[in-house]
């Protein structure tokens, strides 16, 4: 089997969201834990899965594919106007230049946030998300509150993310109903003029690339807990 023998009892509650870090490791397996273990065992026994491939898949999305990729794209667009032009014109190709390609990012669209326009991305029907640049989606993105409210009450949702938009800013919500995957290009914060591409990338958060946060300059006014 796989070497992943530690079962942490806390599970992401879609509702109520109870995490219990004190849950003992030797507690009895829950029904879902048992089901998954038994299923992997059954499929391995039948020769249908190679546990080593499962380990490698997990490692890929836990350590190699994630929002740091998208942050590099954003930082590049901030310092290189020519790259930014290409990104907004054909995001798939521009992002591929940086090596971020593949599953759930085959066809990308970049959306530029400006002082006049704020873009927010959702998938109301499931939880489509641009894996190559942002990794696997966080629980909030997959949750019923976000999926239900982002389209009908985007300003209220953004307020819960500590983003308060003036009335004269236009909100555009993008519902990922097809196979296009959206990356928000957040506004570059003031006070970052002298920063390197790498330093800028470090400021860019996952939530900002979904449109659920703005990017803050280091030491700048903290209007929220952007991540």
């Amino acid at each position, binding site marked *: 089997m*796989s070497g*992943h*023998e*530690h*079962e942490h009892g*806390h599970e*992401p*509650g*879609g509702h109520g*969201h109870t*995490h219990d870090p004190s849950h003992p490791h030797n507690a009895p397996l829950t029904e*879902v*834990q048992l*089901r*998954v*273990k038994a299923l*992997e065992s*059954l*499929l*391995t026994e*039948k*020769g*249908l*899965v*190679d*546990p*080593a491939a*499962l*380990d490698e*898949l*997990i490692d890929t*999305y*836990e350590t190699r594919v994630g929002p740091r990729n998208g942050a590099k794209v954003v930082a590049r667009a901030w310092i290189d106007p020519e790259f930014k032009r290409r990104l907004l014109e054909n995001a798939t190709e521009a992002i*591929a230049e940086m090596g971020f*390609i593949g599953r759930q990012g*085959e*066809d990308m669209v970049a959306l530029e946030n400006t002082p006049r326009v704020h873009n927010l991305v959702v998938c*109301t*029907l*499931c939880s489509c998300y641009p894996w190559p640049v942002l*990794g696997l989606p966080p*629980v*909030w993105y*997959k949750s*019923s*509150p976000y*999926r*239900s409210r982002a*389209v*009908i009450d985007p300003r209220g949702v953004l307020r*819960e993310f500590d983003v308060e938009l003036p009335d004269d800013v236009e909100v*555009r919500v993008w*519902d990922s*109903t*097809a*196979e*296009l995957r959206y990356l928000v290009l957040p506004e570059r914060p003031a006070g970052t003029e002298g920063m390197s591409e790498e330093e800028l990338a470090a400021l860019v958060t996952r*939530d900002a690339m979904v449109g659920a946060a703005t990017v803050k300059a280091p030491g700048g006014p903290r209007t929220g*807990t952007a*991540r």
Partner: protein
Amino acid sequence: MNGVHDMGGMHGFGAVAREENEPVFHADWERRAFALTLAMGAFRRWNLDRSRFAREQMPPDEYLAATYYERWLWGLRELLVEHGFVTREELERREVRAPRDARPRPEALRPADLPRMLRNRRAARLDDPVPPKFKPGDRVVARNIHPLGHTRLPRYVRSRQGVIDRDHGVFIFPDTHALGQGKKPQHVYSVRFAARELWGLEASPRDSVYVDLWDDYLDPA
């Protein structure tokens, strides 16, 4: 199908809860359920649209009570039975007994297959020379249809008028693809719906929702 998965515009789910420093997975079973789904998908007995449709068929009360990877697991189990990989009886087993020397079949996903699988750049986009029915700027209305099968036309835009914002090109049509009835290549557009058209005068006059829709979901307004 008019399922509970089609959540856009629903009330009552409460505030959006964020978790600081959230891990990619919250439990080991989530890791394994995720990887098992991708590994079995690599047999290509079903496509992504069929996978989504499988999850949508989870009974609504169970769907709402389930977490994301519980829904994946539910869909995977259904597909495994439907395609004869396992029986329902086998799924009821709770023993863990895979022998260390179990040999993967030649078609099983191996670590060496991953780069090609994960970095594949072609998925739903097609090269078929299908002419578009609409062009940017055209006014359209989303059809008032209620298919029992899979659809990516959310309820909240049906019968609503919008404007074609951009043409994304030709893609597989999920409604037929999910049912094994072919790719039915056609254009997908970002259609802009004014927030007030969707939600009434309470909505901001400036705001809008862009929804990616296929030719077969749209009529000229």
